Structure formats: structure tokens, C-alpha cells
């Protein structure tokens, strides 16, 4: 279970305190899949950072009794001077997982060939994304955070990702942040719309989309 109770987040800026999230409530049960919709700047990334634990809320409570992944396919944590393999080793060490039996699956999945042993800064953005996704699959979690992951690689690689994530790990909880209606409809049980720092919950994804689209049209 992951539970957000009355979570608010403010940032100090040069213009003073800016409120990003106010009074967000969200509960994710094991195996549940929830989509989060919101326009650019609605606070989706902030919400992900709070759930992943990268940042702390200004007020409210976040409790987790499930292990939570980092935002999936997120390559920001890579050290460019290190090889893909070194980056994999680092992640395995952090999570206390033996690296040796993870090398082969990552090698196969990321399709980097000899590049796995080259510094990550020499990778193209597609290669980086493939490595990031492959490493994300090397550590097992109860709940996966998925931040606009659909854009990874070509269509064949996307199919592979879908297979790994939604077929092989279909029993896990997932929080999917996306603009893509069909993607969210396909994979989520319910959806929530983030608007002006408030999270509106909908049991029916279609209704969530109608609400989201009406917000878009009214230009808020």
C-alpha cells in the first residue's frame, strides 16, 4: 500500500512561495494500476518525485508498505563517464542484488552489444533509453512509477517493453503519468486528473478524459 494523505508541496522561488500541490490524497493498493493525467506544469513530475521519495512533501504524510521503483526508464541517474555495465553494477549494489545474474538479461534486453562496456556519454538517446529500461527491469518492485515511458525506442522495442512490464509484471501496482489516452485506458484500472494542485479521482477512465479534455479546452 502507498498512501498519500493531504500532501502539499511548495517551492521557494524568487517570486516567493509557489504552491504546486495542495491536499493530494491517493491510495494505491497492491496490484492496482492508476493513470495520472495533467497538462504541462500541473505538477505531475512533482507528484512522481514525492512518491519515489526524491523529495519530501511540505506538509501531509506519505507512507509506503510496498517497495517503489524509481521513475521507469529514467536515465537521469546515469553517470556519463561510466559504462552501461558500471551503471548497472551501481544500481544492483544500491538495491543489494547480485549483479552477475543481471548482466545477461540486461545485455539481451537493451540490445547494446559491445556498447554496454562503453561510457554512457557515447550513447545515443535511444540507446540510453533502452539501457534505462533494461536496468529498471533488473530490480523487482511491488509498485512501478511510469513517467511518460511510452516514448522509448522504436515500435518493436516498445512492444518488448510492454511485454516485460504489463505481461510479466502484471501483478504489480503501477502509477502511470501520461498524456496518452489510449495508453492509460489500455493499462489502468482508474485515473486521476491533476489540476491546479488538486488531484481529482475518477473510477471511469473515460470520464476522467472528458474532464481532462474540458480543462484543456477551457485553457486552464
Amino acid at each position, binding site marked *: 500500500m502507498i498512501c498519500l494523505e493531504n500532501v502539499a508541496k511548495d517551492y521557494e522561488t524568487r517570486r516567493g512561495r509557489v504552491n504546486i500541490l495542495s491536499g493530494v490524497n491517493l491510495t494505491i493498493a497492491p496490484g492496482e494500476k492508476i493513470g495520472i493525467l495533467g497538462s504541462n506544469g500541473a505538477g505531475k513530475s512533482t507528484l512522481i*518525485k514525492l512518491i519515489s521519495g*526524491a523529495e*519530501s512533501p511540505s506538509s501531509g504524510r506519505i507512507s509506503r508498505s510496498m517497495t517503489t521503483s*524509481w521513475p521507469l526508464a529514467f536515465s*537521469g*541517474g546515469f553517470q556519463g*563517464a*561510466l559504462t552501461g555495465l*558500471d551503471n548497472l553494477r551501481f544500481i544492483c549494489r544500491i*538495491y543489494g542484488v547480485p549483479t552477475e545474474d543481471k548482466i545477461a538479461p540486461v545485455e539481451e534486453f537493451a540490445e547494446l552489444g559491445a556498447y554496454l562496456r562503453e561510457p554512457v556519454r557515447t550513447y545515443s538517446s535511444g540507446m540510453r533509453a533502452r539501457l534505462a529500461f533494461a536496468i529498471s527491469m533488473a530490480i523487482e518492485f511491488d509498485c512501478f512509477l511510469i513517467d511518460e515511458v511510452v516514448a522509448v525506442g522504436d515500435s518493436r522495442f516498445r512492444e518488448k517493453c510492454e511485454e516485460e512490464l504489463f505481461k510479466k509484471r502484471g501483478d504489480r501496482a503501477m502509477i502511470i503519468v501520461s498524456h496518452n489516452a489510449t495508453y492509460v485506458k489500455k493499462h489502468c484500472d482508474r485515473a486521476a486528473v491533476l489540476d491546479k494542485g488538486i488531484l481529482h479521482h475518477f473510477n471511469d477512465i473515460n470520464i476522467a478524459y472528458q474532464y481532462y479534455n474540458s480543462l484543456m479546452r477551457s485553457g486552464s
Partner: protein
Amino acid sequence: MTERRIETKEFPLANSLRIQGRVIGALFLREVITRYGRHNIGFLWLFVEPMLFTLGVTALWTALKAYHGSSLPIVAFALTGYSTVLLWRNMPSRCIGAIVPNFSLLHHRYVKVIDIFISRVLLEGMGATMSFVVLSIFFIAIGWINLPEDVFKIAVAWTVLSVFGAALAILLGALNEKSELVDKFWHPMSYILFPLSGAAFSVDVLPPGAQEIALWIPMVNAVEMVREGYFGSQYRAHYDFPYLVIITLIVALLALIFTRIAARDLKQE
């Protein structure tokens, strides 16, 4: 499913420590490979670099016949003095601004701000310590300085100064997240502190009033103690060990408090 059932906020202290140890170890290795790579002598640079600094300063002071006011050979004086400078000066420069480039690592639930600081401080401390030990062995082997009289005393002084340097580094690193002025001020500060730190003078030659003032500076106490351990009978050391320990503990406490505040208020972009 069992392998995933390991993480909640409430797990026992031993488990937390095990995780923290693991994370610091991972960050440490990452830092070693990132900074020194696998080219030429690789991680040996960890202590070869500070060694070159110490050797350079030793050579310079010898050539200039620098006045230091004690009967010690200049090599012995430079080795004990400059090595301690590495300890308290390099650790802060590695911690100031350490968070921003590593922010994304905080997405991994186990990685905390303090772990990033500790891994860097450990690396720097190890480099300075190995440099000090290797150079000591070298100069003793070629007969330029004698065997230390009290190795234990040196180890105690060195350890306390290491903890002081680490605490100062973490405090400055955490404060720098609040205001980048810390970065701006630390450079001139460390430059001015170098001659004041006892590295380049012996407290015994100062007039009594000045001695008292000099001993307010924590590093001076540690350097004096290292020298007493090294040269014992040939050196009249002045230091206040309890004062050094108390200051170290105060700085360490402040470091922990401000790291907590920095971690709470962190933001990206």
C-alpha cells in the same frame, strides 16, 4: 515476492544501517570509477595526487628554507603540516555542490543526501590518509625522518581531525544548498586558514598571547598533537585535546541538523 518485501520506514536500526552501508559503498565505488577511471594508474591517483601536493610543498619549503621556528627538519615539518591541510581543506570542496549533479540518484528510495556526502568524505579522507602514510614510510625508509615516537597519538589526532574535516565538509555542503554564498566564501576562507592552521608554524614560537589565540583554531590543536606523536621529545607541543573533540562534536551535530534541513527543502531545476 519475498525479495521485494524489504522496505518500510519502520524497519529495525540494524537493517537501516546495513542498507546505508550498502548505499555508501555503491556511491563510493561509483565516485572512484568516475573520478579516476580505469586508465593509466586508475584509482592510485586517489593518494598519488595528494602525495604530489605534499611533495611539492615539501620541496618548496626546503628550497626556500622556510622559517618555522622549531628545530625539526623541514621535511618532517612539511609532511606533518601539509598532510593535515589536505584533510580539512579537500573534504569541504568535494561536498560543496555535491547534491545538484547527483539529485537524480535520490529517486532511488535508499539513497539519502547524507550518503552522498559521506561517500565523498570517505574517499577524500582515505586519499589524504594513504598519502600521509605512504610518504611517512618513504621518508623514514630513506632516513630523512625518524620513526614516529607514538603512533597511537598520531592515529588519535589524525582520526579526530578527519572527523572534524568530514563534519565541516558536510556542514558546508548542506549550507551551500541554502545559499551558494558558502561556495564563494569557502575558497578565500580555506586559503586564509591554510597559514593559520598550524601547518606552517609551530605554536611554541608564538608569543604567549598569540599562542592562546592560535589554539582557538581547531586544526592547530590537531597538527600540534600529530607533531607531538611524531617527534615527542624534540618538539614542544601545545594543544587542548578536549577542546578539539568538543568542537568536532558541535560541528558534527550542526552538520547533521543542516543536512536534514537541506534534504527536506531540496528541489530540482
